[in-house]
């Protein structure tokens, strides 16, 4: 049936509102599931292993490369003003407050978020989630809440690792390769990074972890409700793409909002 642009706009708006409401209820149920017994400690550990330990390689590689690039770029920029001594400060603040939380969340979304979305999507289309409901087993407590808890614990820890490795990468590029004084690199970092900066980074990583796990698992759980996603394997593929894109954009938007509010 042909519809005019206003009708289509209204229809899309209604769908977006409906989707947001659905996702809000989903989040509430996932948080409630964290407190429902019996707790699934083993599953939480398994998810920490998957989301946290499994993402270590990609986090370390990204952090080292980002830190080294920051070290080199920072050196060339600061060198023009004879301020190479500020390199440690520039690299550490950029990583702790900004790049560490954001890039960690994006890496987790790409590696673990996509896998969680696909897993839940397949479980949905093959009626495994319905089977849990029919056995009176809460799918949130059994499947989803352990992923939430694991992500909320893993992402901040991965961010800390990202920051440490990134600062190390900056040291290698700035001090070892470009000849910046090691003492000024460390001292610049020590004198400029405050507790407030570290808190901002931790709060961001916690919020980003929540956003990634919420959006990625939610897209998988509601794979049948996603408009235009199609059916079967195709719908899982599209839901997974949507989960990664949507969670990445949301992380970037929230990065600005949190910085504006908390800085």
């Amino acid at each position, binding site marked *: *049936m042909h*519809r005019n642009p206003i009708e289509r706009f209204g229809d899309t708006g209604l769908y977006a509102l409906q989707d947001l409401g659905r996702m809000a209820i989903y989040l509430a149920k996932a948080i409630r599931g964290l407190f429902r017994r*019996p707790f699934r400690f083993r599953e939480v550990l398994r998810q920490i292993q998957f989301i946290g330990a499994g993402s270590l390689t990609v986090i370390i590689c990204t952090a080292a490369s980002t830190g080294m690039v920051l070290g080199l770029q920072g050196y060339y920029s600061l060198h023009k003003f004879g301020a190479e001594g500020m390199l440690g400060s520039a690299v550490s603040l950029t990583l702790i407050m900004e790049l560490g939380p954001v890039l960690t969340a994006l890496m987790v979304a790409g590696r673990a978020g996509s896998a969680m979305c696909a897993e839940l999507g*397949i*479980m949905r289309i*093959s*009626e*495994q989630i*319905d*089977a849990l*409901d*029919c*056995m*009176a*087993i*809460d799918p949130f407590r*059994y499947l989803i809440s352990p992923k939430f808890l694991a992500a909320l614990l893993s992402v901040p820890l991965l961010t800390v690792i990202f920051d440490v490795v990134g600062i190390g990468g900056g040291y290698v590029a700035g001090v070892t390769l470009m000849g910046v004084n090691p003492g000024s690199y460390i001292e610049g970092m020590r004198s400029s990074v405050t507790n407030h900066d570290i808190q901002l980074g931790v709060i961001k990583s916690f919020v980003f972890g929540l956003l990634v796990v919420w959006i990625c698992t939610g897209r998988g759980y509601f794979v049948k409700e996603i408009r235009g996603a199609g059916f079967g394997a195709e719908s899982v593929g599209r839901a997974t793409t949507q989960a990664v894109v949507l969670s990445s954009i949301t992380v970037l938007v929230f990065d600005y909002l949190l910085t504006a509010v908390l800085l």
Partner: protein
Amino acid sequence: MSTAIEFKNVIKAFPKRGGGVQTVLDQVSFSIPAGKTTVIAGGSGQGKSVTLKLILGLMRADGGQIIVQGNDVTTIDGRALEELRTRFGVLFQGSALFDSLTVYENVALPLRERTKKGEKEIQDQVMSTLARLDLTGHENKYPAQLSGGMKKRVGLARALQLKPEIMLFDEPTTGLDPVMTQDIYHLFAETQAQEGFSSIIVSHDIPKVFNLADQVIILHEGKMDVFSSPEEIQWSAKEHIREFVLTTMGEIYQSHLVER
């Protein structure tokens, strides 16, 4: 005869893409007797699976009442619904086994999650069910390593663990060969005789489930017709029923009637 499930003027409609609604169940009323087998039949998109989901509370009706053992599923709260669901066993079309769990773990899951039984007791019960369904020796296999028929049997074993009072079978023989189909239906009948549950079977395989059915419900364009015997269906004056008989049952149905 007591009633296991009762539909009273149930309405269920879905929005159509591009506007409007499609009414799948339009003021449908029927009863499912306790301890008996009811077959729900009908063409694709006529609301058979929706009926099962409404019974289980996986979907909410837009109107009417669905009374399951005295509880109205349309108004029940979450906790009470969860409790009610422990009285159901469901065998899904694709078996819905958990891919990451072995056969043993799949069957033990409802016992581990919904009862306070110890691991030894769970092991005894699971192994006894697996033996009864001819699955001994397969307990450490994963669903991907099983044939379609074996998956159905594992699904049935899992559904039986909480001693259900009502069993729901959603297209239980889809994708199985005729011999396996016959075996599965034989297994259902045998299990029902042992456990005494009420059965609801959603199936296209009308000729094969006739031997099991105490009642047949045919859904068509939001309405339903209830029959107590195959002969009653054959002699129905309604055009859509006659068409259904011809298209879905055909010669097999005719030969089945001759045998009877």
